[in-house]
C-alpha cells in the first residue's frame, strides 16, 4: 500500500521517508504487546504532566488535618479506567506533599 501517492508533488521528499516508515509499521506484528506484570517501583510523574488541579486539590483537602478534627486513619480511592491517569495524579500528589 503506497499511501504516499495521496500527497501533493511538493511533499515528495517527505513521503519517501514516510513510506519507508509505513513499511516499517507493516513489519511490526499486528499483535498487542503483552503486558509485563513485573513489580513496578515508584517513578516520578511525567514531565508532560498537565492540569488535573481539581483532583490534586481534592486529595489535598481530604488528607489535610483540620484544626478541630480528631486524629484518625484517612483512606482515599482514585478509581477509573486504565490509561485515564490515576497513577500519574497519585505521583504528582506525592511530589507535592513530600520534601524528598
Amino acid at each position, binding site marked *: 500500500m503506497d499511501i504516499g501517492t495521496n500527497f501533493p508533488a511538493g511533499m515528495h521528499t517527505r513521503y519517501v521517508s514516510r513510506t519507508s516508515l509505513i513499511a516499517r509499521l507493516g513489519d511490526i506484528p499486528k499483535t498487542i504487546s*503483552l503486558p509485563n506484570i513485573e513489580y513496578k517501583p515508584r517513578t516520578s510523574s511525567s514531565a508532560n504532566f498537565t492540569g488535573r488541579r481539581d483532583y490534586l486539590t481534592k486529595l489535598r483537602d481530604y488528607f*489535610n488535618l483540620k484544626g478541630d478534627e480528631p486524629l484518625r486513619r484517612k483512606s482515599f480511592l482514585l478509581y477509573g*479506567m486504565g490509561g*485515564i491517569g*490515576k497513577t500519574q495524579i*497519585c505521583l504528582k500528589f*506525592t511530589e507535592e*506533599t513530600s520534601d524528598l
Partner: protein
Amino acid sequence: VSTYLTDIMHSLIRGLRFGRIFWIDATNDETINFSFQTIVEYPDATASGVKNMASVIHWLSEMDPNWLLIFDNADGKPNVISKSFPPGNRGNILITSRNPEMKRNVSSGAWIEVEDMDEKDTISLLLKAAFLDDTSEELRQASMPIVKELCFLPLAVDQAGAVIACGLCGMDDYLQMYSECRQTLLAHQSFEGGLNYGRAVYTTWELSFLALEAKVAKGKSEMDVQAAESAIVLLQTFAFFHFDGIVEDLFRQAAEKPENGNVIQLRDISGLPHQLLDCKTSGKWNLHFFREGIWMLISYSLNKKNNSGVYSMHPLVHCWIHDRMMQPEQQAGCMSAKALLAQSITFQFTSQDYAFCYALLSES
C-alpha cells in the same frame, strides 16, 4: 524557638506534608509482597528489627502516623490489599484502582472517579509530548481533532504525541495515519509516550482481558468462571453495538421472543454455546449470567453503567476489543450481534421500541 517558628511558618505556607511515603505496586499478591520487601531494606526499618512483610506492617502501625501508604494499580478484589493495611486507626492510605468495588476499603464518600481530561489540558499534553510549542494558537487548533479522536484519554494522547515527536507523522496527517494503522499505533510498545508507564494504550486493557481469561481457566469458584466466561462473550458482542447504548432489554427481548423459532446462541471463546440467553421454566429470561458478566466488566472498568439497564463502553475500549479479535471471532461476534438485533425488534412498533432502536444505532 526561632527554628520552631520557622517550621510552623513553613508548614503553614506549604500546607500538607507527609513525613514518609511508601509505594506499593498492588497489581497482585506477588507485587505487594515484593514492594513490602523493599521497605524491609530501609535503614530505619532494618534498625527497628523489621524482617518481613508482616513486620513492616506492624512497624508502620507503631511509627509516627504522618505516613502515606499508596496502593497503586489495586485492580483485583478489595481484600487483596485490605489484608496488608497496618492495624490501628492512624496513618494515611491512598488507593488507585480500576475496580469501583474498591470503595469498600475507604469510608463513605472518600473516593473520586478519575475521568477524561478537559480539552485545554489535553491539547497542551499532546503538544508537550510532541515537543511542540503548546502556546501556539495555530498548533492548538490543529490539535483539536486529534484529541477528540482519542477521546481525551491521557495515555492515548501522550502516545500520539510520542508518534509525532519521533517523526512518523505530523500534526497534519496523524489522523490519516491513525485511520489506516490504528491498531499498530495504539497497541505497540515502541509508540509508548513519555509517562514511563511501560504499556501501550491497548496493552493496558489487554491486562484486564488476560485476567478474565485466567479466571476462565482457573477461577476460584464455579461462579467466578461463569462470570468471566459471560464477560468475554459480552465484550465480544458489544464490539458490534454502538459503544454508548448497550441495553439489557436487547438480550431480554431476544431471549423471550424467539420469533419463527430461531434460538440464538452466543458463543464463547471455545466456540461453545453460552447460557446468556437461557430462559427459566416460566419463559422469562434468566438474566443472572448477563448481570454477572456485566458486573465483572464493570469491575475492570471495561464497561460502565449509565442508568438502569443501559451500559456503555469507552469508545477507545470499543476500538480495542474490535481490533483485538481475529477474523473468525469478528465474524462470530458480528453474527451474534446481528441475530440479537433482528430477534429483538418486533413488527408492532411502539414508541418505546423506537427509543430502543435508537439506542442500538451502531457505527459499524
